[in-house]
């Protein structure tokens, strides 16, 4: 296994180290021969960056909104898919298809489905007399549009994980509760939910990580717009690095992104009960 550890170290530690080093320099793509060490200047610039606050706020809004929507959707879908009825296997297979669809395909397709003028979604909305928003072009609906498109993948993904959890919930306590007259809601809340909590926590964790990383979805659907309305931190790093060429500042932003994700992960892991003392879990 040591070759793998070595390669992984080389491929991760080296770039991360260089990335951190980069964040203390004035590296710019337009003049790569004149790189100067500028100390913490990039980090001081963070505080005078007019966009950063909005970027951070929209990132948090996007990640929280997306993961909440996907969790609720995934939970509902999983409960429907967990029934032991004939033909349920076909449903399980069909709902797996979005999960395996390439990000670029999801982005392209939803960009056209949600097109304000000739998209199918607006056509169907018009048929039933609902308002037809300029989904991707309006600052009010651009972020929700991205959530809708990603939910198409994320809700079934969570459903598949939660389903695995649901199918391993023991029957006996359920039957006992039913005999004792517990309502369906009570049974879900007191028996099912505690049983699937570890799987649910992992699923939420995975989708949160993924939400922070979104790239082609944004690049294709909104390019971070309108304005910087959907320029989330990950996309902001990309823009600073490869559109504006400010690699030094981008390195600094990448450190911020990494730190933000680490904080969110630690909070989620604690809430999910994965870091209890004495190594006890489940």
């Amino acid at each position: 296994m040591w070759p793998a550890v070595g390669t992984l170290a080389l491929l991760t530690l080296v770039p991360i180290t260089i990335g951190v080093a980069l964040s203390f320099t004035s590296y710019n793509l337009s003049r790569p021969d004149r790189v100067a060490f500028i100390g913490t200047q990039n980090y001081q610039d963070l505080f005078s960056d007019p966009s950063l606050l909005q970027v951070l706020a929209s990132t948090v809004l996007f990640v929280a909104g997306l993961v909440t929507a996907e969790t609720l959707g995934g939970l509902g879908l999983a409960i429907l898919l967990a029934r032991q009825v004939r033909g349920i296997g076909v449903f399980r297979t069909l709902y797996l298809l979005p999960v395996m669809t390439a990000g670029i395909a999801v982005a392209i397709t939803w960009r056209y489905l949600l097109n304000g003028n000739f998209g199918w979604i607006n056509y169907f909305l018009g048929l039933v007399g609902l308002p037809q928003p300029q989904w991707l072009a309006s600052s009010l609906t651009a972020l929700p549009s991205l959530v809708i498109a990603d939910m198409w993948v994320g809700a079934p993904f969570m459903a598949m994980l939660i389903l695995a959890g649901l199918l391993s919930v023991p029957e006996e306590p359920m039957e006992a509760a039913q005999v004792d007259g517990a309502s369906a809601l009570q049974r879900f809340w007191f028996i099912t939910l505690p049983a699937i909590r570890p799987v649910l926590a992992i699923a939420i964790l995975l989708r949160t990580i993924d939400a922070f990383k979104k790239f082609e979805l944004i690049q294709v659907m909104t390019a971070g717009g309108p304005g910087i309305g959907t320029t989330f931190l990950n996309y902001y790093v990309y823009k600073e690095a490869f559109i504006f060429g400010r690699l030094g500042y981008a390195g600094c932003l990448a450190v911020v992104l990494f730190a933000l994700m680490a904080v969110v992960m630690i909070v989620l892991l604690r809430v999910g009960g994965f870091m209890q003392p004495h190594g006890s879990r489940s």
Partner: protein
Amino acid sequence: MLTWAGLSVTRRRLLYNAVASLALIAGLVLVFLPFVWLLSTAIKNQVDAFALPPKLVFEPTLSNFGRLLDGQFAQYALNSVIVTSLATSLALILGVPAGYGLAIGRFRGRQWLAGWLLVTYMAPAVVYIVPMFVIFVRLGLINTYLGLVLGYQTGLLPFTVWLMRAYFADLPTELEEAARIDGCTRARAFLEVVLPVSLPGVTTVALLVAIAAWSEFFGAFILGGSDTFTAPIGVYGFLSDYSSDYGALAASTLFVVVPVLLATIVAQRGLLKGLTAAAVKG
């Protein structure tokens, strides 16, 4: 009285199942809407593709696929095959033994290594790719297959190790022990005893890793170039704000999506097990 109560429960269950199945079918409409758009646009001419209401009856054409063969996309498609094969092979060669070591090895720092793996998986691609871009420019690795294959490992390798670890954790350790009592070295025991038994698991993981590599966008977008761009980048290339060639766009997207969907349908049981096992066992 008792039979009446029993009947009521049965009826309630029947009603619930009917409503739940209807909800699942309604959800499938949403699941299939993007696929229907993709499939139909790929075989429509430019005028029909724009038509609203969506044309259900039209003269199908294969000219969109023909245009893919003529242009650069054919080269990009070939690049996708090359890069996916190489990147997947490397990830497996390094990652499978590493996953085994992590699952059954009892060495110091095992927890640290697992933690580091999680960190590398969590870190967004920009954290690696920005510094990697700087290094690769210096080393002349931009726009080379080697550069892409190495860049992909930052995501694929932790993914492989994590999946394999979950799989090997279920394997009885007696297998290796028996082989070693018979005088095998650890490496030989792994290669000649453990690996053949684990072939189904390795195949599943290989498929998952290959799908991830095939769908990768950001790494190829940044580290690739006109000689090495992959099919997803080719799809993106058909996108333009002013004169989009919808037919070619949809046809090229299908090229990216269809092989994965076919593999998913064929191997869905294994894929689902591989994905959920890794998540559930954390």
